[in-house]
């Protein structure tokens, strides 16, 4: 089995049984940020893993660079993207998985998931965050 690692540091807690996105909170204004800001004024926080779909679209053509999953246009599979509102915190832009885009609805309950993306040159599986429909909904 190949090793898995996050596509970037300080993006989400990993490995973990209940992974969380890593954000930061401005100690003066109370505003949340994602990705986390690196500053003395910012406190690192783990963001809520549940939220509501605020808006969405579908990426239907193969993106150019800097997109790294460069398959042939015929092999490209469209993927859904949206903003998830994490209550009281912030809205996070994310891929949306485990649902047919035709079934997406603004306001639906979503939860965080960590998914394999592509393998790098060292054979490691790069992991990305995504949201999927909440099991309880």
């Amino acid at each position: 089995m190949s090793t898995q690692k996050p596509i970037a540091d300080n993006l989400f807690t990993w490995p973990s049984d209940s992974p969380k996105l890593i954000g930061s909170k401005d100690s003066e204004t109370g505003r949340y940020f994602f990705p986390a800001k690196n500053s003395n004024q910012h406190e690192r926080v783990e963001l809520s893993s549940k939220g509501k779909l605020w808006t969405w679209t579908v990426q239907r053509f193969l993106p150019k660079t800097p997109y790294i999953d460069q398959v042939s246009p015929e092999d490209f599979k469209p993927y859904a993207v949206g903003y998830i509102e994490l209550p009281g915190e912030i809205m996070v832009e994310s891929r949306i998985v485990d649902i047919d885009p035709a079934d997406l609805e603004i306001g639906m309950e979503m939860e965080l998931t960590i998914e394999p993306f592509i393998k790098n040159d060292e054979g490691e599986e790069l992991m990305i965050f995504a949201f999927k429909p909440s099991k309880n909904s």
Partner: protein
Amino acid sequence: MTEVAIVGIGIHPFGRTDGVSGLQQGVHAAKEALSDAEIEWKDIEFAYGGSSAAGSADTMVSELGLTGVPFMNVSNGCATGGSALLSAYTTIKSGQFDIGMAVGFDKHPRGAFNADPEAAGLQKWYGETGLMLTTQFFGMKIQRYMHDYGISSDALALVAEKAFNNGSLNPNAWRRDPVSKEDILNGMMVSDPLTKFMFCSPAEGAVALILCKADLANKYTTKPLFLKGAAFRSRPLGSFEVFSPSLEIERGPSPTVGASKATFEMAGISHEDIDLAQLQDTESGAEIMHMAENGFCKDGDQEKMLQDGETKIDGKLPVNTDGGCIANGEPVGASGLRQVYENCVQLRGAAGKRQVPNNPKTAYTHVYGAPGISACTIITN
């Protein structure tokens, strides 16, 4: 107080012109503007210009003439042309110079714009994982807007249909064939709910304008136009902008709202006085949202306005009479000045088949772009 007039306008046709560089297209527009004002390059006391992907505007002096003129490059993404115009306006207002030029041009490769996360102050993963696409932003912004205000996909198609119809009446437009509403709706989906016919494409083109102190205007033209207001704003907290890994939950106004308000205040004119408007239509949804962001209607009123044809050339408020970005494409550095050019043609009564009827007197432009900037103008005759 010094007023500012537009006395010369020039354009290089938009679209694709193989074998002609963006800079050469800029020179073409500049020469056409000089000839329109019946002056020579040596009469120009200053110039502002820019492109986003086609080189430095100031190198045009090697083609136009080495007169020693101060030629300043401006760079503001989609508002590059708007910034050049605003800079020229302010320069004349200040009394420093009497007559000058604003020029914008561009030439982009085919297909969607390439994005560089680090140049935009973002982390690499954002681009690598396929989130950094302008088309996604446009799809997501209008998706939410349609949900909140009851705008239909039919309305999106009506905007594009109008753009292609107007483009078919404009000899300088890129897309000059009408496309039916059905074909627009059934076109390939690019980023839901937007089909390929609802998007503008990167393109080529150039526009140049000659501005002078208003009390000198009659020297150059029998039909001077007056730049009554011009303002530029960047994004306030809570606006929804392209390339945002996260957004504030509390939503705020867009940069357009501030730029528009400042322009109307500067001109001392109300929305009822505007006879036609050019509004940024990077895609159909943008034109719809910008109708409200610029204060021409309430959120949601656009559905009925479009169904009733109010924004067609013969409607109550004609919008994007030259076909907008959808029919002209988007050469980033030239786009904002194209809007002003079109308003000048309309206010001179020289728009031919696409002329807005009943002698329009006051016209509005609005440009918008990444990373959340907007510039507006009001011109009168």
